[in-house]
């Protein structure tokens, strides 16, 4: 397939793996312990598992799967609030597909649907606005989720709803922003990450400047990367090259999509409609300052939290759950006490087992029959 297969070429992959091995040989640090590189974005996690990338890498390089899966980090209390909105009489709750299975403390949206709530899967917030136009007598609540990747589309939809004077449309806003969370991870004492593969789609919107602090203040290399397997390998090679030469800068591997300045029009729409919340709760990571978005006062009429009585439920993460430590790379998914026993994709306890982009679910799904690690003989033999 044109423009896809070129980025999955096994020969080029072998060349990049060779390059990575060469770099690893030059890095003294990894004689004592493996190098830890975090891919922040769930899309990268998905690609790494789907193409079997981890098992092609030399053992000196460990990929740590970061917090960039918006479905995974959604706290249970927010899901409960969303369910209660969906269960309001006369409501249509519109949501992206992978959010319907996320467990709340009582039920998921899928279970709410089975119990009679009108939950519709949409592919764009504009589909939700269309539902509102088609069902003028009902309230359509869009379950707005995601990082800066999906924020502009939500913002533009709100702007259009205002221009068209659609009054039966609102957002249950759970948009979050990645940068404060990267900082929170870097600030936790047990973390010893050596570099980052930076988010691609988020950066397409925000550009590369917001990551400068990673290099400047924390002296960690960060390379913004695309989502094809060769993108991931090339970005990893660029991170290692920085480590090998003692540099720490922000680099952009995903130039075909990401402009350094980001997308000004998208950012303008986001800033027009949204503002930062003082703090926002992340499943597995706790409360992080200035990490969540809400609608500005001027758009309060489109805010389901202001329009309706939302219970504002707070549910603590299950005690046994070690998602936070997995997210920070302190332990591997299979080292968690409940991985594969109390916590499985069918009955997820923790955030990371929820969506296929979550580190634990990806590991469980693609990882290994014993669920502990890939069986030795199944490892790829890459020259």
């Amino acid at each position, binding site marked *: 397939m044109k423009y896809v297969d070129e980025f999955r070429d096994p020969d080029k992959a072998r060349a990049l793996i060779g390059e990575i091995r060469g770099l690893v040989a030059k890095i003294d640090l990894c004689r004592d312990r493996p190098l830890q590189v975090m891919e922040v974005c*769930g899309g990268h996690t998905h690609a790494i598992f*789907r193409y*079997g990338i981890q098992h092609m890498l030399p053992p000196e390089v460990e990929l740590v799967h970061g917090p960039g899966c918006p479905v995974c980090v959604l706290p249970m209390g927010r899901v409960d609030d969303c369910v209660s909105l969906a269960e309001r009489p006369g409501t249509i709750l519109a949501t992206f*597909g992978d959010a319907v*299975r996320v467990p709340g403390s009582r039920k998921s949206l899928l279970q709410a649907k089975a119990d009679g709530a009108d939950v519709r899967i949409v592919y764009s917030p504009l589909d939700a606005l269309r539902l509102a136009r088609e069902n003028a007598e009902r309230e359509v609540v869009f379950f707005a989720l995601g990082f800066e990747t999906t924020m502009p589309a939500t913002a533009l939809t709100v702007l259009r709803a205002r221009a068209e004077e659609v009054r039966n449309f609102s957002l249950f806003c759970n948009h979050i922003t990645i940068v404060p969370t990267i900082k929170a991870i870097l600030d936790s004492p047990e973390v010893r990450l050596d570099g980052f593969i930076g988010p691609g789609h988020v950066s397409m919107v925000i550009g590369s400047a917001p990551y400068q602090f990673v290099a400047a203040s924390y002296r960690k290399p960060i390379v913004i990367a695309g989502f094809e*397997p060769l993108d991931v390998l090339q970005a990893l090679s660029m991170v290692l090259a920085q480590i090998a030469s003692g540099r720490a800068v922000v680099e952009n591997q995903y130039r075909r999509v990401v402009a350094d300045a980001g997308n000004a029009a998208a950012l303008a729409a986001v800033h027009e409609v949204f503002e930062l919340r003082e703090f926002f709760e992340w499943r597995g990571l706790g409360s992080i300052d200035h990490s969540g978005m809400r609608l500005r006062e001027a758009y309060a009429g489109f805010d389901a939290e202001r329009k309706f009585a939302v219970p504002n439920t707070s549910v603590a993460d299950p005690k046994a759950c070690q998602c936070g430590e997995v997210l920070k790379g302190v332990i591997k998914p299979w080292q968690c006490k409940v991985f594969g026993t109390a916590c499985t994709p069918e009955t997820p306890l923790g955030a990371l087992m929820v969506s296929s982009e979550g580190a634990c679910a990806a590991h469980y799904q*693609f990882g290994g*029959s014993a669920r502990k690690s890939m069986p030795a003989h*199944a490892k790829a033999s890459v020259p």
Partner: protein
Amino acid sequence: MSAIPAGVGRVRAQTVTLAHGSGGRAMRNLIADVFLRAFDNPTLARLEDQALVGLAKLAALGDRLAFTTDSYVVTPLFFSGGDIGRLAVNGTVNDLAMSGARPCFLSCSVVIEEGFAIDSLRRVAASMRDAARAADVEIVTGDTKVVERGACDGLFVNTAGIGVVRSGVNPGSDRARSGDQVLVNGPLGDHGAAITVARNDLALQSDIASDCKPLNGLVAAMLAACPDIHCLRDATRGGVATVLNEIAESSRAGIRIREAAVPVREAVRGVCEILGFDPLYLPNEGTLVAVVPPESAAAVLEAMRGHPAGRGAALIGEIIDEPRGTVILGTRFGGERIVDMLVGAQLPRIC
């Protein structure tokens, strides 16, 4: 000669009403005019509560009866490459064929939502007739129910089927042995992709048609090449990945497949790329997975490619000893990963 009994009228109504399920003349007319007229065979035309089929003819075909049932609730009812009627016949024919049976007789039960268009019902019946003819089976008994608006989604169809398995033929999911070869009869995921496109949520346009087709002819050709096919499975819901996992689990064996050898149409790959789906999990309605002894693999593959339902057949992998109960995919990219059972339905990803 038509099998319609004398004195039975045409249905003049445009839509099905509760009266058509009441057991009276309206129902008799509906059954005769829509279903009898389409299926047209003397066993059905008796219009008794059961079909009678001779034992001697069945006994001559083999030594075991295969018996199956399946319900069809697809949305939309009509899609590129098929409709619910064609699906209902082929699905049950294929369920029988996967035991190695020669399918003989089907039943057809319909649950109709009031307000359903009679023309659509005729279309479904006609397509069941065509599918039954193509698969060389007869629809010999049936049932019609009409339910109130909202109690079902337009039309649900159930078909049950009877077939006969000849002696010596004994495929089973627990019979895969190390070294056996894994074959499929053609590109994966056409049905799932066609349904996804037909639902039109994404306004995708493509020329993907469902692979909905009977597989009994193909299976007969494969059994002629190798009567001792170890496993034979119809990769419907859950796709090829699910079938392979079930075989690996039942046979306590490992399965290794090569992504580069798995046939998938370009357009289906495109739909999967857009939605974040994996073609290995997409449902099929005319795709089978066969596990055959290594010495017969070439002959079976040739027999498959010589049959219209197996032109695109491919050898995609093999049975291995370890890790037991696990399916491993060698990716085109050069890595390896586990292909596990799907949890719930495949859902489009956010970003």
